[in-house]
């Protein structure tokens, strides 16, 4: 089967272009439909791996630290994202706790784990065992990762409750904020160069 590494097809409209060399920060858009075709790598592997490690640390904090605390008449209550998900799991709406857990915690956690695995091998210019599977899963997970929605939800909850309760943000909310910045940066479309690490059967390319 002939393969054409020098070509790129727009995913959104099927028009074909020849790849060109890019400067750091360049973005190539389809001239027909305006979708992004590909972009230059913004970060080096070392930077990317360092940010993935930072994301892993923040992820641990998200799992254990409460995002906020409320007080009413001398009583206090704090909640982590997990406790929020578990609160959904009570009563008639219980099934929604599963997708909420996925979107808020499980998917971001899987993304960070897969990235750490893939990047630590990529640093040695090697393809990680199961690289194709990892990258495919990363592609499928991307739309379901909702850390930024969690951050907004926490902010809305703060405003909502501050009307009749004392509300104090806790460390967890900073961790959620940090992941809101890091996860899109790490899983953006410019990780596509990682596919290039896969060994491809050498065949003619016209």
């Amino acid at each position, binding site marked *: *089967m*002939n*393969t*054409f*590494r020098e*070509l*790129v*097809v727009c*995913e*959104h*409209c*099927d*028009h*074909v272009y020849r790849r060109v060399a890019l400067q750091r920060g360049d973005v190539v858009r389809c*001239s027909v*439909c*305006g*979708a992004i075709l*590909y972009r230059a790598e913004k970060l080096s592997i070392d930077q990317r791996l360092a940010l993935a490690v930072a994301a892993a640390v923040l992820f641990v904090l998200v799992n254990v630290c409460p*995002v*906020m605390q409320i007080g*009413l*008449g001398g*009583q206090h*209550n704090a*909640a982590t994202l997990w*406790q*929020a998900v*578990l*609160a*959904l799991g*009570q*009563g*008639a*709406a219980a*099934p*929604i706790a599963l*997708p*909420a857990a996925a*979107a808020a915690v499980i998917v971001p956690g899987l993304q960070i784990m897969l990235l750490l695995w893939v990047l630590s091998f990529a640093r040695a210019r090697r393809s990680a065992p199961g690289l*194709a599977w990892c*990258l*495919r899963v990363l*592609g499928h997970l991307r*739309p*379901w990762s*909702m850390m930024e*929605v*969690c951050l*907004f*939800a926490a902010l*809305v*909850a703060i*405003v*909502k*409750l501050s009307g*009749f309760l004392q509300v104090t943000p806790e460390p967890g909310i900073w961790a959620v904020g940090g992941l809101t910045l890091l996860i899109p940066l790490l899983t953006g479309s410019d990780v*596509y160069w990682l*596919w290039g690490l896969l060994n*491809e059967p050498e065949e003619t390319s016209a």
Partner: protein
Amino acid sequence: MKQIPRADELGLLACHACSLVVERATAPMHCPRCHTRLHGRRPASVQRSAAFLLAALVLYIPANLLPVMFTSRLGSGEASTILTGVIEFWHAGAWDIALIIFTASVAVPCSKFLVLGLLLVSAGTHSRWAQVERARLYRFVELIGYWSMLDVLVVAIVAALVQFHALSYVEPRVGILFFGMVVIFTMLSAMSFDPRLIWDTQDHDK
């Protein structure tokens, strides 16, 4: 702009996972680089997308009619739906929060229904009308889709925090389950839609 060829016309197709461009063959094909099954277009795209959209539309009715949350304060309780929640914020003077919740829970899902419906009808009739704008609309819907999860996560956080037994407590109600399902089904509908159909103005079934 007119002379840019399409992969379809050149007998090429791109792997939708790793975006390697390969020559199209008749037999079922797998990507030589990442072994993903190759398709010229997403299979049964319009049918799947329409089915998910219809399911979301049906579920949107109970999502709005049934209460999403029950709040008890000093013995007196009230159930609130998505819209009454927005109205409460508005009357309390928090117009900004009212606007955020209204956007995430009403404006975003409704515009997704309209846009996906429009894309499905125009793609089904191979229309040449406003192709660039329709392509942009599709990318917009993909971008905003998951923000509707906001309300689900707000209910989760508030219900986890407000647990003061006799004084005050908040419980999720079944409406939030329907609402969460609306968000998931509209996301699945957008993912199943193949934006290349916008540019397929000649009938072909691959």
